[in-house]
């Protein structure tokens, strides 16, 4: 039942390999560095070691330490250096080791990268990509689990992305690096090695053999601002992204609910057309994310959906999200929206009558 819309298909005959999301991300940087010598990669532990999640493994050896190197532990500096390089004409793709550590760079991202084109009337631009692993489910406690995407969607001048699978991760990261605007690229770390449906007590799945783990070699892009229908359905729409795509799909299967699951991929720019079409079709909507509820990106989604689809909505839009608390360590599975919690929400949405 799951529809595997993998965006723009690369031309037929292209070699395809099974890749994890880590490999796909690395491959994206590899492809970009091979095509454009202005692409440089740096961040904490990304050089010799290849990153704590191994996303930049072997790149230093391949492209030399002039283009792939370690950074001092200073996230503001990583982005600030990147903005300066971008102003020079390079295309830095930098890593912030965990999204929980992006806050020291917040000023450089918001006040500088995002504003540069506008404030200089196009005299200077900041084509920088900031990759950062987000989300919980790895028993990482409150400083290795956060999903701060809505802090970036509020910022005019930024693009904010979150892929949910290797195919998209590669195509979107290439598109981000090639984009002439600053992009914050969130990588749901719980998906690095396989899709994850929220059942943490079942054996981990791998991307091997998974259709979305089949990644074409070489260059292709997934256009920014295009959502993907991860699962077609007619009873209720689930608007989500990242890890929650799989949780939603799983919850729908378990509850036997004909839910349509939309994987946004890009939060800003946002594909309102796809969202509108789905919600107008189903008349019922669940907005779902792992980040803290209040002022999470789900708030914007809910607000926009009721603006666009009010007269099609049969019941109120529901939000399911992380609670309004710090991400706990031991209780993370009570924080992480579970298939059960999502399933109950879906059920109440389809059962509710006016």
């Amino acid at each position, binding site marked *: 039942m799951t529809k595997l819309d993998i965006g723009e298909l690369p031309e037929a005959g292209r070699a395809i390999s099974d890749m994890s999301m880590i490999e796909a991300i690395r491959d994206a940087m590899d492809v970009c560095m091979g095509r454009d010598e202005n692409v*440089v990669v740096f961040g904490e532990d990304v050089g010799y070691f290849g990153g704590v999640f191994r996303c930049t493994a072997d790149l230093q050896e391949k492209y030399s330490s*002039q*283009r792939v190197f370690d950074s*001092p532990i*200073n996230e*503001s*500096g990583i982005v*600030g*250096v*990147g*903005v*300066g*390089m971008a*102003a*020079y*004409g*390079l295309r830095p793709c930098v890593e912030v080791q965990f999204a929980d550590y992006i806050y*020291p760079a917040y*000023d*450089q991202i918001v*006040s*500088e990268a995002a*504003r*540069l*084109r*506008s*404030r*200089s*009337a*196009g*005299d*200077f*631009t900041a084509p920088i990509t900031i990759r950062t692993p987000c989300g919980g489910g790895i028993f990482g406690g409150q400083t290795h689990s956060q999903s701060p995407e809505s802090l970036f969607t509020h910022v*005019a*001048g930024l*693009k904010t992305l979150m892929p949910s699978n290797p195919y998209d991760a590669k195509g979107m990261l290439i598109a981000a690096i090639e*984009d*002439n*605007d600053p992009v914050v690229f969130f990588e749901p770390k719980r998906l690095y090695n396989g899709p994850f449906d929220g059942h943490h007590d079942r054996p981990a799945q791998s991307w091997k053999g998974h259709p979305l783990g089949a990644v074409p070699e070489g260059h292709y892009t997934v256009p920014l*601002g295009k959502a993907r229908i991860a699962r077609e359905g007619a009873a209720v729409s689930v608007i989500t992204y990242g890890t929650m795509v799989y949780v939603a799909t799983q919850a729908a299967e378990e509850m036997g609910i004909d839910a349509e699951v939309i994987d946004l991929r890009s939060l*800003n*720019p*946002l594909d*309102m057309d796809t969202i509108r079409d789905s919600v107008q079709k189903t008349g019922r909507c669940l907005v779902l994310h792992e980040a803290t509820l209040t002022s999470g990106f789900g708030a914007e989604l809910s607000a926009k959906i009721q603006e666009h689809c009010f007269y099609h909505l049969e019941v109120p839009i529901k939000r399911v999200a992380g609670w309004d608390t710090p991400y706990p360590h031991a209780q993370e599975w009570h924080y992480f929206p579970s298939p059960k919690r999502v399933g109950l929400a879906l059920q109440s949405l389809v059962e509710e009558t006016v």
Partner: protein
Amino acid sequence: MPDYQPLRLRVPEPTSRPGDQPDFSAFHFPVAGSVSKPPIDVDFNDIIEHAMTTIRVLNKDGEAVGPWADSISDDILLKGLRAMLTTRVFDERMMALQRQGKTSFYMKCTGEEAIAVGHQLALQQGDMNFPTYRQQGLLIAQDYPLENMINQILSNAHDPLKGRQLPIMYSAKDHGFFSISGNLGTQYIQAVGWAMASAIKGDTRVASAWIGDGATASNDFHAALVNASVYRPPVILNIVNNQWAISTFSGFAGEGRDTTFAERAHGYSIAALRVDGNDFPAVYAVSKWAAERARRGYGPTLIEWVTYRVAPHSTADDPSRYRPKEESDAWPMGDPVLRLKNHLIQRGIWSEQQHQDLEGELTQHIRDIAKTCTEHGILGEGSKACDMFEDVYETMPAHLVAQKQECEALNND
């Protein structure tokens, strides 16, 4: 612990406040010409003293003396004087515009003109400054069109920045002048990144980073020094120590009796020099030295320019509330324009009359330009109402297209 005395917080105080006599008795400057000029490949460790002293070229009699005095040509000196005088006259004219209500805001650099002008003349085409709001001299020294500056200040129809930025927040890539940020300190680390890019590309372009004494306290100052220390890119790290940060004296950025801002560099293995910022030949010579050092691959140099902010912080500020009115007159390093003028006269290539004439000419010239500029609008007149949607992104996304339409509909009603 009965034998420990209760502690107290040490809160720094400047030597004088309104009503007091200005007091610069703690300032000690070596005589001009007494500080050595090291080879450009010198190790930072071998010039530790250069961060504690003050390099000066012009002596009391207006002569240029010592090892830093040699390389400077008459041509540069005359250009420098002209640019400095232009800067001063420009500042005065813009203040007048502000008082007349033609612009909402202005910031002068009075007393600091030698620094930006002298520095710019020592750079090359292709180098890039990452300035603060008090380096208008960088543009003026390159004959950047004053019209552009005034149009920006007036936010009028010809403003190159289309009214988007506060007055004086210029941007001029072609003139090696990075877009000024209102956020202090952020550009310091960007300059380091730009210089790293120059090295990565195998170029020899130099970045010049600018920061005020107050803003050295900001975090990105450290980010810049750490990265400059690690990657040693071709960057000049300028600190303009004009003693004040709005109402707060330099002691709140950690300047002390026994430390200079220049000395911050040593802990990062960065060569540092402290220079009389009101001494044009010194500014030029040290800038030239640092740029050459950078271009030859010897890495970053930090320069502390010692000067005094004669002007109010901005047109929104009234310094008489926090420092003696007479403090700027008491500043022991004198006026940079006057000192250079005296030197040129002493050198025999300038005269009082020429100076007066130039001042008159510039005053008239700038008055004329300002007049023409005001015809394109003042205080935002002529800027497009719904321009703000442009340049947010390279390509306007759907939601901005819709918002722009709404904005335009509101304006056309």
